[in-house]
């Protein structure tokens, strides 16, 4: 049987790569200089039947068109915004992602960022390390996390996991979603502005699609308000970033905990000096345990495909 040719657009994870190498023929796109990548794909198109994508690089329309033998796109992520799903459906290309295994990590980070922002943990840590505790006295008062209303955009696996954790802190939960979810006690808002106006911490946990692009815009930020905190563990483009920076600069928004940005790894430097902002470099699922589990799921899906068995976590 012909060894599965797998296109890997960028380095993602050493364990994943070694497992792919062990089983398949791996084509590493980044080994070609950018101007020669189209040629590289053309040259190997006959062999490439799979693409492994992630949050940064997947399979857009051009890539799919350049790979006539493409059968499956296996994402090393749960987000599918870098895959042209419509094109895959048209071509009969299967798509898989890595749901569930990363839910906990991402939800943990959302709560961690919320507490870090409200209680100024990173600021306070810097305060200690700079010697200020000795010279200036105590750190200032911050604000309590427990009991604050959490508003969640998107009540999927990750949204529900955030809700479950926040409930343990006595936080009332409300959410905005394309449709109301039947089996929860959480308060549903059919309008995002209303959700933002009625919560203290707003967590972005929905997929990035055309509809949700810049869903957190100036109006939403203003509704969240000078005491409100935005936590983004979704995708950078969920938020109108220049508006976010302006709102923080002008005090119209109380604070932000951000794991994702519109143009990663570029982050607006104006945010760096703000004490009410915590910025982390897209580490949502970045633990050893979870990345290993994600890699196993990618391999598992590819193996199932090769063996003509039901895919483990298909999207298309």
């Amino acid at each position: 049987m012909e060894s599965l040719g797998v296109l890997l657009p960028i380095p993602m994870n050493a364990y994943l790569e070694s497992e792919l190498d062990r089983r398949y023929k791996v084509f590493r796109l980044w080994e070609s200089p950018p101007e020669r990548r189209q040629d590289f794909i053309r040259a190997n198109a006959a062999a490439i039947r799979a693409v492994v994508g992630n949050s940064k690089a997947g399979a857009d329309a051009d890539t799919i068109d350049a790979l006539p033998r493409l059968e499956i796109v296996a994402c090393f992520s749960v987000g599918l915004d870098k895959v042209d799903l419509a094109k895959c459906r048209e071509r009969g290309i299967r798509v898989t992602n890595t749901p569930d295994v990363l839910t906990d990590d991402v939800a943990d980070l959302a709560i961690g960022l919320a507490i870090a922002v409200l209680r100024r943990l990173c600021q306070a840590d810097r305060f200690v390390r700079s010697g200020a505790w000795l010279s200036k006295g105590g750190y200032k008062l911050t604000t309590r996390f427990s009991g604050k209303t959490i508003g969640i955009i998107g009540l999927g696996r990750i949204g529900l996991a955030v809700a479950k954790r926040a409930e343990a802190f006595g936080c009332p939960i409300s959410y905005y979603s394309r449709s109301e979810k039947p089996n929860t006690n959480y308060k549903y808002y059919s309008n995002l502005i209303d959700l933002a106006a009625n919560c203290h911490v707003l967590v972005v946990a929905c997929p990035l699609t055309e509809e949700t692009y810049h869903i957190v815009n100036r109006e939403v930020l203003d509704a969240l308000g000078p005491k409100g905190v935005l936590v983004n563990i979704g995708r950078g483009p969920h938020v109108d970033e220049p508006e976010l920076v302006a709102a923080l600069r002008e005090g119209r928004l109380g604070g932000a905990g951000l794991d994702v940005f519109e143009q990663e790894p570029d982050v607006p430097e104006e945010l760096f000096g703000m004490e009410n902002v915590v910025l982390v470099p897209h580490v949502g699922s970045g633990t050893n345990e979870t990345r290993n589990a994600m890699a196993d799921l990618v391999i598992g899906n590819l193996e199932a495909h090769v063996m003509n068995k039901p895919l483990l976590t298909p999207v298309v």
Partner: protein
Amino acid sequence: MGVMDGSDSDNRSPLNLGGYLAIQWTAVHWVERAMESFGVLLAARIDPYLEAELDRRFKLFRLWESPPAQRREFLRENAEAIRAVVGSPALGADAEMIDLLPRLEIVANFGVGLDKVDLRRCRDRGVRVVYTPDVVTDDTADLAIGLAIAAMRRICDSDRYLKDGSWKGKGDYKLTSKFSGKTVGILGLGRIGQAVAKRAEGFGCPICYCSRSEKRHTSYKYYPSVLELAANCQVLVVACPLTEETRHIINREVIDALGPKGVLVNVGRGPHVDECELVSALHDGRLGAAGLDVFEHEPHVPERLFGLDNVILVPHIGTDTLETSKAMADLILENLEAHVSNRPLPTPVF
């Protein structure tokens, strides 16, 4: 005939109602006057709202207005007037202070940790002690969880990595360690310990604990020794009172048992932990990570910790939120007013 039986018809007469109101007014006025002349010593500059309210309601003495070398003089000079001390985690009411205040009736502790109050001396002297339980529970437990997640997921270090340009220059941050599902071991299952447990359960963390005695009403796994607890959990949270028995309870043995993947979170008191051993263990990799709110000699923090990315160091902020500080201050004021008015104390230790 003519017996005053306190029947309603008698009490409703204008003369008796006037008398009743006069007595009430006198009583309130008397209490207010009593409070104004009631001397309260504030041991440290804890909180501006508390200070302002104490000043407004009582006769306030500020210990820090005299230099430390003249502390005894200050106390002696004002001993006649001082009937209450309001203490904090930094400075409470030790034996020396209590002995210098013969008219001391009550010590009000701004906090739930009583290690800076000489409780035995207070008991001997018949001095009441009050503190601020419950209102501090949520904030302290929130901080414990926040420190655990921040330490394991390197939130502060990766924030620094992003801001110093490393994400652009060097690529993605390294992989860290998952928090959810890790076994959380709690030393001390009081109000704060239970609040930590409840939160950790929201993350699917199995809970175990060590305490002076097993708590019947919980289903958490009990270990009779802190060494066994450390050997069987991944995140160890210190949430017990500081006493002679618990000083340096987290020693080298316990730290080694917690191990290279273990995380220590201290929201108790600095002296709970043998700090030298902790620093060595973190440097040697014998302990995985730590989230610390308290230190043996605050505000001194071992500088050898500053260069480590696997520790979070915060300056004793466990209860330092606007909401909780005000609630603590209000509770102190309530207790003092109750004492002056001879009413039951809301939150006595004894």
